[in-house]
């Protein structure tokens, strides 16, 4: 071993990066967190509460922040280039410095699908159309002129997910349950509002998700309509008129809403694709980074010394991401051990 | 014996007379009202039965056995049986002997109906005769009998478990007044008779008591107030009687002849239904018996409470109790006076108003009719439920083939409903439309036997379908006969322990208990459940209940299963697809239909 304390570049300080860095530090390595944004925490830091127990996002972040308090963290730092050396990787950072490391962990996470690409939903065009992220920010800040005592709210599932034409044929996994969570929160906030969820399939696979769904139906009276919204128009009073087919009754439905929330899906972070190309790490057909083995080695890349954690390999939930981050830390540990 | 008072009167009899006059008047009017409320045909039938010797004998026997001796209760619970018969029969004998004494000693006073009750106050013993001593002895004997009954009653009230009841009814305020006055009557009588025993004479209880009292009281001043108290206690009891559960005493005496005459509930609140409600003694046997009362749930929905709410006219609760019931019939099976809980409830359901009434007249059943037309032989109607338990249909078909029976399936691709679920929901008029449609198919088939593997269907086909010339038979009976006739040879599997679950509709509903057991015994060794035959416990899946949710039914099913498995059988066997489907979900061992077991051993 060249260095008693190998340096591991952890790209991205979202929950995957934070958890992995904290585990690596505990294992005696020197992780370096590289974060593009001015704060750590990634998407979870922008979220208010998390399904299915309505846990405040803060509660998930706090232990991670505590665990990485002593880890070197570079904020506002982008990676200009990555070079692969023999057994080592050299990262040129946006501040001009370079970082030589013995392993790279991609914790680059995901990008929320740009909802304005689904033009027919009118995000960025109609006043009353917002995204899941906008709503979550409203839960945090309570400041959004678009949300004004709505009497009818719609949620559109699968915006930019399972949509070949939108460039993302994959399921984003978390939107169904997020929509249900947000629908419940909106109903709690505005008990008189009628809330509609327009879905293609409801994919409630996780622990307690189905209970959450039953509660949304029975206790909150949220209307689930199986059918994707075909188009959104604006009525003279600025409310939005949405059209869909209720596929269960085989009839077109139309409803006027005060607020339409688009459940923007998960796509791979384009930066991750860029870095991967630079060091010859494979990108999968779905745009996410390609694991060496999707069953047995999801955290391993096709290159030695490069590892993945979290949503850079596909949509993940918070517990999956955390578990994968720990798993990646262990994989890195084994990697250094095997090199002697 | 001589009379002590020339007038034959003392003011203390007034309370009794008032009470007696009130209760007799009330009961007479109530009886006339009930009889008038009967539909004309029923009324005629009932009145005719009263003058038919056969019925007179039946009525007398039943009234004696049920109202006085409480034979049914003896069979169920010896302590409770003794308690009831000691009070009823003892009291009855006191009244009879009292009259005998009056007739023997002061026949001129027989027209004073209070005289036999207070006989010992009005007479003085002039000489001791054997005859007098015997009567005195009997009077004391029966008084002791009643008192022993009262003692048990008091114990039961405070510790019902001692007499073998887990739960008993909660009494209303008036019931308590009635109860306490009833308890008071006989100790007061003992006191009153004891105080006057040195004058009127007495026997083994009253004489020593008299002696005892005289030792420290020394005078007769206590005698009159005690007779007053006795009279007042009687008065209170009789005045509250019509408004308490004790109304069952007179009501049952009308119920028995009416039931013997074959009168049925035709109106949810009038006539026979009203009489049944008043005949309910409020004993609460139905609470423990009710399968819904498992884990102390739904205790307030037992028949005893339905009757109470019906008397109070609490419509919300009547509807709730009526709709929740599984209609398993167990409350009727255990009821001492034979109140028909399920029938009463269905009558309430039938009273409902609906915004929407189904109609099936427009259905074209031609394809079903054409498929079986003129086939003759045995027509097997598998029924809706069997579609969810295809093993029953397959096993039945296989057995029929093995026995060489010429048979046809009436509903190969699903037929119509038999109509029984509609009847249970109180929509018997609509059920008639389905019955008419099914009749069309059955008649067209020209069959001689209609075979059913579902007891729900069996009951309605047997009772409601005018199928003269066609034998309606449940498969358990049919297979038992085939085995007995040697057409099916079943191999006995030694050591195979089987428990038979009596489905409600087959057992209590149609009285079929033994044939399935006989058939089953050819295949294995029969073990019995904790409660069986008429006391078997509903599986909880019954269509009878309109409101019980799946979650509420689950503990009932578990309870029924626990009962079935007390003897640790290898398999639970039943003859109802609904019981089967209900048990299978929760059972810890195989649950099979009788046909499946037989087919496997054939």
């Amino acid at each position, binding site marked *: 071993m060249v260095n008693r304390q190998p340096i591991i570049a952890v790209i991205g300080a979202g929950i995957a990066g934070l958890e992995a860095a904290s585990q690596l530090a505990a294992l005696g390595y020197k992780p370096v967190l590289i974060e593009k944004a001015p704060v750590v925490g990634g998407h979870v830091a922008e979220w208010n509460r998390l399904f299915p127990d309505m846990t405040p996002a803060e509660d998930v972040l706090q232990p991670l922040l505590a665990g990485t308090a002593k880890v070197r963290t570079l904020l506002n730092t982008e990676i200009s280039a990555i070079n692969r050396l023999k057994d080592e990787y050299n990262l040129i950072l946006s501040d001009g410095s370079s970082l030589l490391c013995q392993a790279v962990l991609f914790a680059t996470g995901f990008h929320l699908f740009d909802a*304005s690409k689904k*033009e027919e939903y009118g995000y*960025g*065009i109609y006043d009353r159309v917002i995204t899941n992220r906008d709503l979550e920010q409203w839960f945090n800040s309570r400041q959004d002129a678009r949300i004004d005592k709505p009497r009818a709210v719609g949620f559109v599932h699968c915006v930019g997910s399972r949509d070949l034409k939108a460039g993302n044929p994959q399921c984003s996994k978390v939107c169904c349950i997020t929509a249900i969570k947000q629908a419940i929160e909106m109903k709690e906030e505005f008990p008189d509002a009628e809330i509609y969820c327009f879905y293609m399939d409801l994919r409630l696979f996780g622990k307690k998700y189905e209970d959450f769904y039953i509660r949304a139906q029975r206790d909150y009276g949220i209307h689930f309509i199986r059918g994707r919204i075909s188009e959104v128009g*604006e009525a*003279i009073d600025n409310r939005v008129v949405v059209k869909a087919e209720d596929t269960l009754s085989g009839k077109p439905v139309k409803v006027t809403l005060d607020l339409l929330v688009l459940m923007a899906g998960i796509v791979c972070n384009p930066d991750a694709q860029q870095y991967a190309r630079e060091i010859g790490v494979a990108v999968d057909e779905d745009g996410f980074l390609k694991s060496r083995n999707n069953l047995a080695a999801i955290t391993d890349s096709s290159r030695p010394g490069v590892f993945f954690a979290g949503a850079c390999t596909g949509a993940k939930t918070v517990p999956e991401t955390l578990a994968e981050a720990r798993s990646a830390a262990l994989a890195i540990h084994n990697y250094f051990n095997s090199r002697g | 014996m001589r009379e002590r008072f020339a007038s034959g009167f003392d003011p203390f009899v007034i309370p009794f007379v008032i009470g007696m006059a009130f209760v007799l008047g009330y009961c007479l009017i109530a009886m006339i009202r009930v009889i008038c409320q009967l539909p004309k045909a029923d009324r005629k039938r009932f009145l005719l039965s009263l003058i038919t010797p056969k019925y007179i004998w039946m009525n007398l026997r039943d009234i004696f056995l049920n109202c006085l001796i409480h034979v049914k209760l003896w069979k169920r619970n010896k302590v409770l049986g003794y308690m009831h018969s000691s009070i009823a029969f003892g009291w009855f004998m006191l009244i009879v002997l009292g009259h005998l004494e009056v007739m023997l000693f002061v026949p001129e006073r027989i027209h004073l109906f209070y005289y036999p009750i207070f006989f010992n106050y009005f007479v003085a013993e002039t000489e001791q005769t054997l005859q007098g001593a015997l009567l005195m002895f009997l009077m004391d004997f029966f008084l002791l009998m009643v008192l022993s009954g009262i003692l048990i009653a008091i114990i039961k009230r405070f510790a019902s478990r001692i007499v073998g009841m887990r739960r008993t009814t909660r009494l209303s305020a008036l019931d308590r007044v009635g109860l306490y006055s009833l308890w008071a009557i006989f100790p007061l009588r003992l006191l009153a008779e004891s105080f006057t025993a040195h004058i009127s004479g007495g026997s083994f209880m009253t004489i020593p008591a008299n002696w005892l009292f005289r030792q420290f009281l020394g005078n007769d001043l206590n005698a009159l107030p005690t007779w007053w108290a006795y009279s007042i206690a009687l008065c209170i009891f009789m005045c509250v009687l019509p408004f308490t559960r004790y109304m069952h005493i007179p009501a049952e005496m009308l119920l028995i002849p009416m039931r013997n005459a074959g009168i049925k509930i035709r109106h949810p609140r009038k006539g026979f239904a009203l009489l049944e409600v008043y005949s309910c003694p409020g004993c609460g046997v139905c609470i423990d018996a009710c399968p819904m009362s498992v884990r102390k749930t739904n205790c307030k929905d037992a028949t005893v409470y339905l009757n109470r709410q019906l008397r109070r006219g609490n419509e919300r609760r009547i509807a709730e109790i009526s709709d929740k019931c599984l209609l398993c019939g167990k409350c009727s099976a255990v009821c001492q006076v034979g109140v028909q809980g399920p029938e009463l409830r269905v009558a309430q359901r039938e009273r409902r108003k609906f915004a929407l009434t189904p109609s099936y007249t427009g259905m074209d059943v031609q394809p079903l009719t054409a498929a079986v037309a003129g086939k003759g032989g045995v027509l097997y109607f598998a029924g809706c439920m069997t579609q969810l338990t295809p093993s029953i249909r397959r096993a039945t078909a296989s057995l029929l083939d093995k026995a060489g029976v010429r048979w046809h399936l009436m509903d190969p691709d699903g037929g119509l409903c038999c109509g029984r679920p509609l009847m249970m929901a109180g929509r018997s008029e609509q059920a008639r439309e389905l019955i008419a449609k099914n009749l069309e198919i059955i008649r067209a088939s020209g069959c001689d036997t209609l075979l059913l593997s579902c007891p729900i269907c069996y009951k309605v086909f047997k009772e409601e379908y005018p199928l003269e010339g066609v034998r309606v038979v449940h498969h358990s009976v049919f297979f038992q006969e085939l085995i007995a006739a040697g057409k099916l040879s079943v191999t006995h599997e030694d050591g195979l322990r089987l428990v038979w679950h009596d489905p409600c509709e087959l057992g209590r509903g149609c009285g079929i208990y033994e044939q399935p057991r006989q058939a089953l015994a050819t295949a294995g060794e029969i073990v019995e459940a904790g409660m069986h035959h008429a006391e078997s416990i509903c599986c909880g899946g019954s269509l009878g209940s309109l409101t019980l949710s799946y979650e509420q039914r689950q503990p009932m099913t578990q309870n029924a299963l626990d009962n079935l498995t007390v003897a640790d059988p290898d398999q639970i066997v039943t003859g109802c697809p609904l019981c089967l489907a209900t048990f299978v979900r929760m059972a810890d061992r195989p649950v099979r239909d009788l046909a499946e077991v037989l087919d496997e051993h054939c």
Partner: protein
Amino acid sequence: MIYQGKQKIWSDYQKEIPDDHWFYVRSCIRQSFFPASETHFVKIVRDLLGKDLYETPHHTTCGGIAYHSDTIPQETAMTIVARQFALMTEAGYKNLVTSCITSFGNYCEILETWREFPELEARIREHLWKACRREFEKPEYVAHASDVIFKLRGEIAERAKYHLVSRATGEPLRVVEHIGCHYSKMFPHKGVGGAEYPCVLSGMVESWGGQVIDYPERRHCCGFGFRQYLVKANRGYSVSNTHKKFESMEPYHPDMIITNCPGCPYFLDRWQYVIAEQTGKTYGQNGCGIPALTYEELAGLVLGYDPWDLGLQIHQVGPEPLLDKIGIPYDPNRKYLGLNEKEIMKPGLPTVLKCC
């Protein structure tokens, strides 16, 4: 409505439209119903603005109507289109401009199909050769005539005699723009501004001073729907569609409708009469209808051509209230005079819809 949002989308759908040298193919329907529109397109583009616009009397239908009515297979339509291309090639042009939206869609669809299935193109070339011994080159650009007017909207605005402004109030006129379905719904990138918020017509309206209104059923079909109209049994669906659009635009009180498709102005115009007869309801002011014009007619009005020369008298809905609103002079006595100043006969007047 966030206008910037729309502009962002428009910027994503910039279509390259050549400046000059066009091979123009006319529309079967428009030649019959709105001949003056096509005439004025030629007048404006070639005569007024001096562009090179060529047309040949040898061109035929593109086969689009038959294709969309399921009466001919696509290969037949392709061969017809191949012949048009051959005519263009023979004339030495590379830029195709079609008068008809369905033709435009048909050309685009066929070119895209050939791109995906080159063997099909080879077969069509063979068919064409066998049929009429012609050969062709595919056009470099295919544009709809409204694309050309969109491109030239600035030049037209510079020469404008009238603006789409109410003379009385100075307020911009409220204009409903209706895009033909085959313009960009099949290939959003072939239309100016894409399929969801096309700006080909709204660009003209805004350049000429009007205000476009955005109503919920803006994207809905005019109701023609080929088989829905052509089969009489289905005509109820056709008129119901149109009715739905009018119900949706009614609260906005539009002053006029402009369209870029042959069928749309026809159905948005004529069905107003049928709806009025059936329901007693009219959508314009004072019992009149909402005039539904073609973009050439609108361009012609802006440029100061005589309304009757533009053929406005052959619309069911009278254009007079609109002309009065803008302040365009017209001679009511000339309304039903033909080009030779002879009476072309007055139509009978409807019972409900007021037509001046």
